[in-house]
């Protein structure tokens, strides 16, 4: 039955069906049997009732019955089923008569009628047909336990597949560097009112009443209380936006301050010539503008004309330029004698004439107005109003990046240069230049301000087509820049001259300084030398012959040590030859240099090497000051001599002692040979009898040679091979779980965590807790939505990673 899990279900259902079918047939059979009995009785009844009703065919039937009864008497009792003969009100359902009564019923008999009945579904038909074809007997149904087991199995699989869907997210969480619970929380901060309100229900009667009132008056309850604009402002600016905004404000403010400064400066200029020239320029400009205006915008031109007319009227009404004031009177008195006064009066009159002339451009007034406007630069009105406004649009660039202010330093430079040059050059040139520059600057700044304003307006109006305007702006800027260029070119020439001059001056100065310095140094040197000489003399006087002898001795000793060493070598050889068990030399280090005497034995290499180490080529250091006071240890000459001898021979001892000690240590470190021979086993034992050689060989256990010592290649060093027990208590002695090799683990713990060795950020990163829970927050189990969301994210991330991978390739 239960062979393969996948087939189980099918076979089981089959079995079920077959069993059902079998049951059915059984029931039918019994029914049939039952019918037979019933029918008999009924027949009898029938016979009784039908006797009176029908008489014509009665005889015939009776005869038949009789025959039947007789035949029944003869053999075994044959049951007959009642026949359904006529329509009656009450009909027994069991009185159905089968044709082949008493026969075995075949499946085909049952199915036969199936084709005729349309009610039977094709599916069952098919099933029945396959059943018909198969000749096998149907298996008995499974036991309860087995079916349950199967059911459990299936249920488990289902649940498992359900659960495995969470696997990804769980793994991801497990692998995450840090988890902050509750997961996927909304950022803190103010929430919009509507959201708060929707989640809240009126409970108390007061609240209910209020809500009823509100709803009655059609006040918004749930509907957005906040307009989208408000919502935006609620969210507050993002950092970038804020930065942009700030930058723009900064620029505007800077521009304003420049503008103010400039106007202030201009106002302070007292040069009449300057103003005259400027006025002239302005006038020209105005005329030009006016001409243009006449062509392009006649209405505006008319207005302008009106203005002029008005100005003329005012001039005519007023006594302003008519030489009737106090000043004019005083001038009039002086006019007889003073040319200048006369001129001034003349000018006044001219102005008056100009102004009162009909249909003349009336420039003067206009320009006065302009000047006035300029003077008003200090007022807050000049500040473009957008400075104080909140900015909403997203499409505003960083003004610092856009505008011309980035050139400011250069401009400043040029202006400085101009100042420098101006001082030297004549006043006329200076004035002119300044004027020019001023003009240029003004135009630039004005253009910028205008640009700002226009941009602002544009943004407010949310115009979509920007390009033509921008291009216009650019043109303006270009013009101004060309002007600047020209000017700067002229300046550079001046500057170069200046530079060359300055350089020449500097050179002269440095030369002078050097001369002075050299003088100083010479003096200094002389003094120092004299002092040194004096010192040396003193030292000589103090030490006298002593120092000389000592130095000579020192040299001697150096020589002597060397000679002694040679003798030592020989001694060493003898010594070691005398030693019965010479230890084999360790791994050869360096070949002895050629200067080594040829007679050295190779076997004694180590000792020689050691001495080489001890007598490594020494550099004699020259000491400028001679020693005056002797060390307490060897103050006497005699003592020194003795000390030297002692040193020399002590050196000999030192080396051999050291070697001996090292050998001893090495021997101690070697594993001992274990002798397990038992005398008397397998052979004769007793005094004077030794176990045989073969046996001894067999039972002597030789341990493996120890690893090479750390000081094998260092002849003059003994490194202890003892294990440091105390530190092992603090060491890790078993590799922690996920690691596979020691090096992996060691490399992960190689960086210290403390603040002493790391910067604050690193410490914070390294000591980040794996799980963070917010105090008081409810950590709810993950919802199914999360799963879906994560899946989406994962797929997106996958795609991204794939993309990036492609890009990398």
């Amino acid at each position, binding site marked *: 039955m239960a062979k393969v899990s996948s087939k189980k279900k099918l076979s089981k259902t089959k079995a079920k069906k077959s069993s059902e079918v079998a049951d059915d047939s059984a029931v039918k059979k019994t029914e049939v049997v039952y019918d037979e009995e019933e029918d008999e009785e009924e027949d009898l009844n029938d016979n009784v009732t039908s006797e009176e009703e029908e008489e014509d065919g009665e005889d015939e039937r009776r005869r038949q019955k009789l025959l039947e009864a007789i035949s029944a008497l003869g053999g075994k009792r044959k049951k007959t089923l009642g026949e359904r003969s006529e329509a009656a009100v009450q009909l027994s359902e069991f009185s159905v008569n089968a044709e082949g009564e008493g026969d075995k019923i075949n499946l085909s008999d049952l199915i036969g009628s199936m084709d005729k009945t349309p009610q039977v579904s094709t599916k069952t038909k098919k099933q029945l047909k396959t059943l018909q074809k198969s000749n096998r007997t149907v298996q008995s149904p499974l036991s309860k336990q087995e079916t349950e087991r199967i059911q459990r199995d299936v249920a488990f699989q289902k649940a498992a597949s359900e659960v495995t869907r969470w696997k990804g997210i769980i793994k991801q969480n497990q692998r995450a560097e840090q988890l902050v619970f509750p997961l996927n929380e909304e950022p803190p901060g103010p929430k919009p009112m509507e959201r708060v309100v929707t989640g809240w229900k009126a409970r108390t009667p007061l609240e209910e009443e209020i809500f009823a009132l509100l709803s009655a008056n059609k006040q918004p309850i749930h509907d957005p209380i906040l307009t989208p604009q408000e919502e935006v402002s609620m969210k507050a600016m993002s950092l970038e936006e804020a930065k942009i905004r700030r930058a723009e404000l900064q620029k505007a403010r800077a521009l304003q301050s420049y503008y103010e400064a400039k106007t202030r400066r201009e106002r302070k200029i007292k040069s009449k010539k300057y103003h005259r020239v400027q006025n002239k320029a302005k006038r020209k400009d105005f005329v030009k503008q006016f001409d243009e205006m006449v062509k392009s915008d006649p209405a505006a031109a008319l207005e302008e004309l009106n203005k002029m007319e008005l100005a003329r009227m005012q001039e005519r009404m007023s006594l302003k330029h008519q030489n009737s004031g106090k000043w004019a009177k005083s001038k009039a008195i002086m006019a007889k004698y003073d040319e200048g006064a006369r001129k001034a009066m003349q000018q006044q009159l001219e102005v008056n004439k100009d102004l009162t002339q009909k249909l003349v451009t009336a420039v003067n007034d206009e320009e006065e107005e302009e000047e006035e406007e300029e003077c008003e630069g200090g007022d807050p009105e000049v500040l473009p109003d957008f400075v104080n406004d909140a900015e909403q649009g997203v499409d505003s660039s960083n003004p610092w990046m856009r505008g011309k202010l980035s050139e400011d330093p250069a401009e400043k430079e040029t202006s400085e240069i101009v100042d420098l040059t101006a001082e030297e050059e004549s006043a006329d040139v200076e004035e002119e230049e300044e004027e020019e520059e001023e003009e240029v600057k003004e135009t630039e700044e004005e253009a910028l301000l205008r640009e700002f304003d226009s941009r602002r307006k544009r943004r407010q109006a949310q115009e979509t087509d920007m390009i033509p305007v921008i291009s216009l702006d650019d043109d303006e800027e270009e013009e101004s*820049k060309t002007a600047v260029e020209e000017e700067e070119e002229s300046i550079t020439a001046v500057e170069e001259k200046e530079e060359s001059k300055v350089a020449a001056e500097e050179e002269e100065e440095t030369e002078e300084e050097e001369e002075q310095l050299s003088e100083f140094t010479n003096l200094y040197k002389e003094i120092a030398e004299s002092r040194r000489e004096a010192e040396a003399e003193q030292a000589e006087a103090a030490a006298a012959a002593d120092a000389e002898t000592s130095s000579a001795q*020192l040299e001697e000793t150096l020589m002597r040590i060397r000679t002694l060493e040679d003798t030592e070598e020989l001694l060493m050889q003898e010594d070691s030859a005398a030693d019965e068990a010479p230890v084999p030399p360790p791994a050869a280090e360096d070949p002895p240099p050629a200067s080594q005497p040829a007679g050295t034995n190779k076997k004694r290499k180590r000792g020689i090497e050691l001495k080489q180490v001890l007598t490594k080529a020494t550099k004699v250091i*020259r000491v400028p000051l001679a020693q005056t006071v002797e060390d*307490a240890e060897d103050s006497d000459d005699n003592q020194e001599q003795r000390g030297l001898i002692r040193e020399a021979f*002590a050196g000999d001892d030192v*080396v051999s002692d050291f070697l001996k000690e090292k050998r001893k240590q090495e021997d101690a470190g070697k594993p001992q040979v274990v002798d397990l021979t038992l005398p008397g086993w397998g052979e004769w034992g007793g005094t004077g009898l030794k176990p045989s050689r073969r046996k001894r060989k067999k039972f002597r256990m030789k341990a493996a040679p120890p690893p090479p010592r750390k000081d094998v290649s260092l002849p003059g060093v003994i490194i202890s091979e003892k294990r*440091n027990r105390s530190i092992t208590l603090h060491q890790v002695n078993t590799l922690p779980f996920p690691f596979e090799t020691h090096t992996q683990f060691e490399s992960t713990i*190689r960086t210290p965590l403390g603040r002493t060795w790391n910067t604050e950020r690193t410490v914070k990163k390294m000591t980040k807790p794996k799980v963070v829970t917010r105090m008081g927050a409810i950590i709810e189990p993950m919802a199914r939505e999360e799963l879906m969301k994560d899946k989406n994210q994962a797929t997106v991330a996958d795609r991204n990673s794939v993309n990036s991978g492609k890009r990398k390739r």
Partner: protein
Amino acid sequence: MASPGDATLDTSHVGKKKVPARYWLEPQKEGKDEGEVGKDAESIKKRLLRKEKKKEKIKEKKKEKMREKMKEKAKKMKQRDTLVEKSISGKSDPFPGPAPISQDRVRKFKRKTKTKRSGSVGNKLRDMISRSEETSEMAQKQSARFDLLLPEDAGFLEGDEDEDTCTISQEDIADAVDITSGAKYFNLKLSQFGPYRVDYSKTGRHLLLGGRRGHVACVDWQSKQLMCEINVMESVNDVKWLHSEAMYAVAQKKWLYMYDTNGIELHCIRKFNDVLRMQFLPYHFLLATASATSFLQYLDVSVGKEVAAICTKTGRLDVMCQNPHNAVVHLGHHNGTVTLWSPNQKEALVKMLCHQGGVRSIAVDKTGTYMVTSGMDKKLKVYDIRTFKPLNSYFLPAGSSCLSLSQKGLLSAATGDIVQVYRDVWSTTVTKPYMAHRVRGTVWGLHFCPFEDVLGVGHGDGFTSMLVPGAGEPNFDGLDANPYRSAKQRQEWEVKALLEKIQPELISLDPHELGQVDSATFEQRHQDRVQALGFDPLAKAKFIPKYKKKGRSSAGSVERRKKQVAHEDQRDVIRETVEDKMKIEEERRQREKKAAVLSGQKSALDRFKK
């Protein structure tokens, strides 16, 4: 410091891009969205070009090279990071990514090498390793970045042409430098109480003087303020500051004493007798003493307990120094050997033969790389103490009795009454001293003052404070040794230092040993445990038969009873092995049988087989 690698906006919020002309930018960069504002871009380009020209005219000569460099740099950056993120203004960042750090600076903060990725490692492990690599790399880089905050640099003395720096006298230097520095050169004439030993406190503010004939004084030497002055009425062998300037130890004729800054005797430690030299290990709070009886003793000054007493069996110990890198104590002996000691081992960690005569003085540099020794053979030798190999050997005509190394690696050597200072003794071969100075008497103690360009010389006629340019570390760690700390800060530091005290067990030749996995065998560890506990915790109790009366505890029956339980543990093992053997045998037989059956070839003689 700006945090590197911060995200920048990748969407530009402006449609129109007005580009300020930067001289490192190339005009070709324009035209990203030419389709939209083609005209505009064109005009901008023109303008840019014109601007470029103008700029060039102005600053042609000055800036050309620099600009080119910058351009190259920018190009490199571009190549390095093809996907340069756009900033707010829509311009690409000309210097994308974090600021570069110089390679040697990064190397300075390197800690071990990282492991090579082995091919097949589990997911979890791979994550773990990569994460730790990332953090350690970050730590390294950040440290390198912050190295910028140590701006001070050590200077040095530079003579004129054909003038030796060693001929420049202290007076000249003192005259040349500023007043405060000049005041650091001074002499204390203390001829009465014999040659002086010297010690500076860890911060370099306080000076301790110990005269041979019992005079002990501590001075705030920069303000020349005398803190206390006593005469202990005994010979003084050595003086040493303890962890702070509140306490100091004096090795007197018989015992070791401790005093506070008021000269009040705090302790007399009778366990430490005949001390000749002392060293204080500041991070372990250990006072190591070497005595005339050849004992090396360690005293934990934080708890007042003797940590270890080691009999070195090498005679009188009057040469001692410590390795600041690993807190190992170096001792010099009369037979020309230098031994290295830790309190955890009864025998010397390393014994090296350095001189043919006795060793007179030792000094180890701050990084624990080099050791300088001087001996009776009048030689001065430099060793690489990590490999124990000699690097340089010098012959000093008179030998040197005292050695001292400064924080910046200047070596001072005293020969008689002359103090010489050498530069770069290990990296180059020195032929003459960097500085030399003659003091009044035989030099008895030398000590460089930390964080100052000063060398303190204690001699027969008092004390001399010498100016040695380039000796002290110019950048101090305010949390470790702050020369300008207040009393409050000192107290705070003391508490922290005590909390961070390193246990004496951790002293070993390689300080990184703690970070290694102990690869000892179980047997070895068990042995250690047995040694530590004094008994074998895993050993089985020996079976002792119960005493029974009525003659049943006769020797024979006791033996029999013993035999019953003898080798009980082995019995199981033997049984198992026997069973195993049987099983194997059985299997083998069956296999043979099967093979025979399978072979199917029946010989005529098979019938005789049973």
